[in-house]
């Protein structure tokens, strides 16, 4: 625990995001229990809405988000729920597809980062020694490099586009994951069941796979779920600075596109902003729920 606190400030996110536990009430026992409540939590509603909207964007959207379907600058109305933009494109469709893209950026970036983080964290934590030293120096290095600026630089200097943004975010966000997992494994390594397996001659890979990962992963999963929303916000921010991707509709693109028309058509600015807020909110709330569920099981 000492190591965890001294070496890794971000680790305490795990603790900090743990939601309120009613002092008198019993801990919520499982995920199903939460969803079966008469009024599912806000998180669930938002999460399902975002996910469904993103998944079925192609079906739900009344129009192609790039195609001009009506007169430009129509305020929200029956024909166009969110109004139309400067080229007469349906904004509701834009928001649906944009939500999908933004979520994809968040999920892909997080997956890349999770993969690297888990790989490095597990190796480092399990093997220790010089390998651990080396990997931890590498981790520190990537932790200190400001990832927003790195993304900014990569996009401005090399190739703008969502792919670049996603990859850069994925490649630079893993240190937190790695350090968290490493700390977990370090503490598990000393636990009886691991020591017992080792004494019984179990292979390294087997121990990692069967004992360490399943027990060490829950806090990592929680942390990753919180990363998704942050990545969505970074994508939007880069787009705002004019470094987005005009080939794929994302919420960042829509917000950037609204910039010249702020005074003219508030809907172009409002709806994508609310969409991103609710999606990020959804992922954050889900992170809380996961935290609640997984960590409880884990600590039990």
């Amino acid at each position, binding site marked *: 625990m*000492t190591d965890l*606190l*001294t070496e890794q*400030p*971000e680790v*305490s*996110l795990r*603790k*900090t*995001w*743990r*939601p*309120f*536990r*009613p*002092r008198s009430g019993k801990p919520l026992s499982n995920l199903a229990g939460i969803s079966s409540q008469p009024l599912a939590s806000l998180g669930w509603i938002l999460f399902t809405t975002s996910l469904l909207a993103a998944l079925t964007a192609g079906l739900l959207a009344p129009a192609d988000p790039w195609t001009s379907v009506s007169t430009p600058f129509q305020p929200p109305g029956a024909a166009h729920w969110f109004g139309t933009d400067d080229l007469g494109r349906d904004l509701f469709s834009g928001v649906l597809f944009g939500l999908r893209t933004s979520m994809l950026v968040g999920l892909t970036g997080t997956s890349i980062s999770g993969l690297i983080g888990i790989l490095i964290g597990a190796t480092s934590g399990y093997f220790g020694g010089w390998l651990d030293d080396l990997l931890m120096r590498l981790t*520190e*290095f990537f932790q*200190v*490099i*400001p*990832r*927003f*600026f*790195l993304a*900014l*630089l*990569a996009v*401005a*200097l*090399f190739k703008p586009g969502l792919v670049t943004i996603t990859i850069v975010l994925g490649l630079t966000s893993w240190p937190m994951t790695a350090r968290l997992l490493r700390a977990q494994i370090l503490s598990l390594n000393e636990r009886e069941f691991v020591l017992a397996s080792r004494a019984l001659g179990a292979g390294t890979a087997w121990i990692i796979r069967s004992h360490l990962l399943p027990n060490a992963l829950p806090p990592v999963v929680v942390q990753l779920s919180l990363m998704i*929303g942050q990545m969505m*916000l970074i994508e*939007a*921010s880069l787009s*705002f*600075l004019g470094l987005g991707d005009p080939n794929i509709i994302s919420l960042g693109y829509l*917000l950037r596109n609204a910039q010249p028309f*702020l005074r003219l058509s508030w809907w172009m*600015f409002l709806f994508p*902003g609310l969409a*991103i*807020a*609710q999606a*990020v*909110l959804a992922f*954050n*709330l889900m992170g809380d729920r996961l935290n609640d569920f997984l960590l409880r099981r884990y600590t039990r």
Partner: protein
Amino acid sequence: MTRYVLRRVIQVPFLLLGILVFTFFLIHLAPGDPINALAGEYGNAAYFAEMRARYGLDRPIAEQLFIYLKNLARGDLGTAYTYGQPVTRVILERMPTTLLLMGTSFILATSVGITLGFSAGRRPDSLVDHSVSILALLGYALPVFWLAQVMLYFLALKLGWFPIQGLTSAREQYTGLRLFLDVGHHLLLPAAALAIQQIALVTRLTRTGMLETLASPYVLAARARGLGSRRVDVRHALRNALLPVVTVVGGRIGFLFSGAVLTESVFAWPGLGRLLLEATLARDYPILMGMFLLISLAVILANLITDLVYAILDPRIIYT
């Protein structure tokens, strides 16, 4: 403890060197030419060659890196292309405004966040608790620039409570107290916009910390000893609840910088964030290198200080 600090301090130059080499290659290997930005579009081939030679850009990258590091060792960060001035001067000139913005926002975030988190955490499940929690969640989910523009539109343009842009009023040349008030007036909106995400985070951290410590045995014991509720909450619970706040807030200096880029853009706040963005677009390599050095150094130092503060707050921690 001393050994630990020493080890960390020794690491700093190596870490910095690594970052410098990394960013140097990243920047110099990118397609494009800083001379384009410098020359406008009118230069002919001879002009380009001349300018490249002037800035040493015609040499092999390894040599350029070597020269850069050599100069750096003497404290010379080079000359900014677009400004024709030493990078150190360009950066230092803008530092105070950014520090003012970040500092104010930091103080705002910590004080408001702790207050909100404390009042929410003291009375779990109350109306206060739920309103604070939902606001904190929202604050953490909204894009900084979006919120900044909403604030600008309503509070500055529509209601006229705040000025739209800048550090001071352009038409007046205040001095003394008037200047102080004028800057304060201009500062509030950007600092608030930059602080919102931090407020949300600090609120959540404090609240969670309060909940956990309030349920811990020693708080219960203090209560049993008959200490007043408010006193227990503040003296015992809050102090412990703040531990995670310290670590997380200290580790977020980089986030504050990136938030500053956006806020400074929206409010035309003349600081380092803007400088970084402009330098990126103009490919002003020396400024970019200088900024990366500065930010990395700030992050490293913040992490170190965080660790130490943590150790002071929590005597259980022993550094090895």
